[in-house]
């Protein structure tokens, strides 16, 4: 299948932190879920911010569905779920927040309503619709953040630590959701079992460089590789 995401030799530096990402190249083909793993500060979030056009690579090229990412613009093909939901939820009520993207996409009222319903349903946030988003618990906020991105029906969904602050049931819900949505997903997480369940492939990033990539179970079983990257082999793969 065609590559929907394609990075070629991407470098990135922050003003006060050089070489956060170095020579990153990879492709993701449509409908696949790819896990991005690596220790704290490896550059996962930075990579995602580049992919959705919030940051601009210092060098290299990023293409989504064959087109260059629009820096600081609206890339409707990419949905990004922030690591911290408070950065993402800004509307007075949950429903308003979920509606925000579809309204901006100039859809018909009927279509907007349908999308809101659908997104609230699959994320299990239906009961929260009229609640103010600032009075929700951490886990509830996370699910609303997911709903508000899914309502835009992006082709690619980027999850940045989606299971942080979720209880077992909510975590399970996210797993099922990622598995059932036939989209291209990028998932960063420190929850290795979660990555193993949701992703076919993984990419290990350490200190801004790709150190390994390949089939999830194969890579994550490699004890030496994992430990050198500050990671642990998930329990289910220990022999």
């Amino acid at each position, binding site marked *: 299948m065609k590559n929907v995401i394609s990075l070629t030799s991407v470098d990135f530096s922050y003003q006060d932190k050089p070489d956060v990402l170095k020579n990153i190249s990879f492709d993701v083909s449509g409908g696949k879920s790819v896990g991005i793993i690596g220790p704290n500060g490896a550059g996962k979030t930075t990579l995602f911010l580049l992919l959705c056009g919030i940051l601009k690579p210092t060098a290299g090229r990023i293409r989504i569905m064959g087109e260059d990412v629009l820096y600081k613009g609206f*890339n409707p093909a990419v949905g990004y779920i922030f690591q911290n939901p408070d950065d993402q939820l800004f509307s007075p009520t949950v429903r308003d927040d979920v509606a925000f*993207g579809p309204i901006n996409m100039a859809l018909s*009222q009927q279509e907007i309503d349908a999308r809101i319903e659908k997104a609230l349903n699959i994320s299990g946030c239906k009961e929260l619709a009229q609640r103010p988003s600032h009075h929700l618990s951490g886990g509830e906020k996370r699910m609303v953040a997911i709903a508000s991105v899914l309502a835009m029906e992006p082709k690619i969904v980027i999850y940045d630590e989606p299971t942080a602050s979720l209880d077992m049931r909510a975590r399970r819900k996210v797993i099922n959701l990622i598995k059932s949505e036939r989209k291209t997903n990028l998932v960063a997480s420190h929850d290795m079992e979660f990555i193993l369940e949701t992703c076919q492939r993984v990419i290990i990033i350490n200190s801004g460089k790709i150190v390994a990539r390949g089939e999830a179970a194969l890579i994550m079983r490699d004890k030496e590789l994992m430990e050198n990257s500050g990671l642990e082999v998930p329990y289910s793969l220990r022999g």
Partner: protein
Amino acid sequence: MHIELDRYARLKSPIHSWDPRFKIISLSALIFAFSFTKQLTLLPFIFVISIIVLLLSRLPLLYIFKRLKYIALFMVPMVILLSTTSGGKVLFSLKFIPVYAQGLTMSLLVVVRTFAILIVFFVMLETTPFNRTIKALHAIKMPDKLVSILFFTYRYIYVYLEELRKMRIALKLRGYKNAMNYHSLKTNGGIVASLLLRSFEQAERICSAMTLRGYTGKFIIRAQFRACWQDYVKEFAVALVIIILLKTTCSL
């Protein structure tokens, strides 16, 4: 400390059920009419009207009076100043200080008018969830920019207050107590600084989040307001009061 903006916004009362667009227009007009009254004889009338509005709203009286208390404290010096310096006939003297009739009338006018206006104002704000008020302002054609600013202020005031609350808890847990010394000053300065920095950085991230979802600078607010006959009746009642007020003011 949790600020509760919409604490009583979901009670049931004739004022709560009033379409917010009508409510804002009618009650703002009433406030204007109040501010134009200049006759002492009208004071009881506007006072009673404001109390009736308050009672109709079923807001807890204590809650409103508590909020008025601070303003009352603020007004005391003004009353004293006005009634002892503003010329005209000396009504009586306290020791050597003269109390002027004109000053006293003027302060009475200001005090009653202020309270009546504030009561109506509080009722207007407290009986609608704030986000509905914002949408209503948009619906009655308040400028986009202003509505956007209100909207964000509303949303993010919670984030920052929460942030502040967390920082204070963190301080307390590590044994910090406010005092009048260098250490305290430095700590509080640090809190303000990091709150500002955090707000600034968060504002940038929020801006990104909005761009990612197609925001281009113009807010598209879709509000669902539908007026029914009761809304018109209530508006008519307020309009009547305003007309009476203005008519009396002009004819006297």
